[in-house]
């Protein structure tokens, strides 16, 4: 049956390809348009954003919006806070997740087996809002309270650690155990063998895991909104504050959002080579 498809003349494929391209064009429209509208809104004046009939090209270009958002000094520090939280959380998730993932991959029996690994992953699946309030009280009773970097760094582990553990487990499973064993016989101690041989093999995977964790922590709003606000502010809870009386300042809000998009997009572009290799599992074989 596969044979029949492969033997078909090329003309039939041309139509399929056209259809596919049309679908692709539609899909791009769907995803790119919001981004486009966001960008032009960031350059509009406040008045232009409030027209009942929206304009699709700014009548009056206002690049100063991008400076304006930082008139409030705390807005910049919010980006810094977000960065600290996301980065620290990612580092912690990766470190703990790699250790746990390695244990699940190499010593499934001793580490509690597939069931335990799956249970850890399933923690990722319940609706976050369900634990919102309990978590608040839990963190409130700690010495550092809720309104601190540490609270969010630890809290986000609830979501990122299961993901990191599970994915790292898959990557470690894919890295042939014999290569590690060969390294032991070469005379490397287990720790050095891990660093020299296993780690380089799972590095692409690790980088994609890092990306996923970092983006989650960077973009998280629900918990941040409840937990922090005065000592620490993440950029996500700053975005809704661009108002003037009852009036939302769409242009500033969009400009700030665009600025907040820069770090993850830059990271993605820099690391996309690893991302693709990491996300297509099984790369280390051969």
């Amino acid at each position, binding site marked *: 049956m596969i044979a029949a498809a492969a033997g078909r003349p090329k003309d039939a494929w041309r139509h399929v390809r056209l259809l596919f391209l049309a679908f692709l064009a539609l899909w791009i429209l769907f995803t790119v348009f919001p981004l486009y509208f966001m960008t032009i809104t960031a350059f509009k004046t406040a008045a232009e954003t409030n027209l009942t009939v929206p304009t699709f090209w700014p009548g009056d270009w206002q690049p100063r919006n991008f400076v304006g958002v930082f008139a409030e000094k705390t807005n910049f520090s919010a980006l810094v806070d977000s960065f600290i939280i996301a980065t620290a959380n990612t580092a912690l998730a990766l470190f703990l997740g790699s250790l746990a993932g390695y244990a699940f991959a190499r010593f499934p029996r001793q580490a509690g087996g597939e069931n335990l690994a799956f249970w850890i992953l399933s923690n990722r699946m319940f609706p976050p809002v369900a634990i919102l309030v309990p978590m608040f009280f839990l963190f409130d009773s700690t010495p550092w309270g809720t309104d601190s970097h540490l609270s969010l760094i630890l809290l986000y582990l609830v979501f990122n650690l299961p993901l990191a553990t599970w994915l790292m487990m898959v990557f470690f499973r894919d890295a042939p155990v014999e290569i590690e064993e060969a390294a032991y016989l*070469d*005379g490397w101690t287990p720790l050095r063998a891990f660093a020299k041989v296993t780690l380089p093999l799972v590095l692409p995977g690790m980088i994609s895991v890092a990306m996923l964790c970092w983006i989650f922590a960077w973009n998280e709003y629900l918990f941040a909104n409840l937990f922090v606000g005065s000592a620490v502010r993440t950029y996500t809870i700053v975005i809704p504050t661009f108002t003037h009386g009852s009036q939302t300042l769409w242009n500033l809000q969009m400009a700030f959002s665009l600025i907040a998009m820069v770090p993850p997009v830059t990271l993605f572009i820099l690391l996309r080579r690893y991302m693709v290799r990491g996300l297509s599992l099984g790369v280390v074989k051969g």
Partner: protein
Amino acid sequence: MARLEVDEICKGWDFPVIDELSFSVDEGEFFVIVGASGIGKTTLLRLISGLETPDAGRVIIGGADQTKLPPYKRRIAMTFESYALYPHLSVHENIASPLRARKVPAKERDRRVKEVARLLKIDHLLNRRPGEVSGGQKQRTALGRTLVADPEIFLLDEPISHLDAKIRHELRTQFHTLEDLRKVATVYVTHDYSEALSLGDRIGVMGAGGKLEQVGAPRDLFERPANLTVAEHLGQPTINVIGARLQSEDGTLFLRADSGELKFPVGKSNRALLERHGKEKITVGLRPQFIKPIEEAEDGAEPLTAEIDVFEPLGATGIMIANAGGVRLTALTNPEKHFEPGQTVTLAVDVDRFHFFDADSGVNLDRLN
């Protein structure tokens, strides 16, 4: 450099894989373990190397009990069936790995890697990654990594069985000539009996049940197999096995095949052996190379009339399967001469080359008395 002793070693998971297995390999000896795939040969090597811990028994290297020593503290080099090269490192870095682990200075390291690479004819590939070289070259790289380590023991796990015939010949020759390999104790594991016979100073045949069925020099194993398992494992095509009964007619001893009319006289050299054994039922083994199609009866050999079932001309030999009085016999022939299925031939059987096994236990009668 040291002597290796494996002393009553046991290992099992849900069932025993290695069961009270013992052997020793002298310094400079090449010891081959041959057995069917999946029988536990690799597990044995892993026990010796320390990658697995035995349930019982000891591994003694150079007189010291190393059973509890982790692999990286032993001086053992091992090749893996899957080569286990580091895919992210170049051939040079792969070979250099054991030297780096032992903190050999970079200059010395480079010198030794190049020396080994030249020996193995991969010196032009040093900058490539394992993914960019052929199977034979991967094997040479893996071999290079073990050779450079200057270990006390070499363990080689099916190093050439996945390669093309031509490269297999070439590497086998290399195993014969590599001095480094020939001066320490080496354990070489394979399922291919011809590799075992060719390379081994001594060979251990591993059977089901995790024990060595027989240990001995190549000729001993092939010409005097301890039991049916050993006889059947060595040799391609497999030895002819015929269930037979010992009968006497006018004072002459005969062997009559259970299935059919076939009847062999007992050669003079074997008469005493069979009489001493005293049982009527005997399993007879005869290697295909001692059955030959002939034009007419010759002296000394026992002629048989048979109908050809299959004839296959292979490379250096031809294989004929013929039905002689209800018994299927495999014979090695000259491949140049063609035979047709259905054709009748006269086969000469060398009765002095028979092996006799106890019908129940499969033990060679040689060993029973």
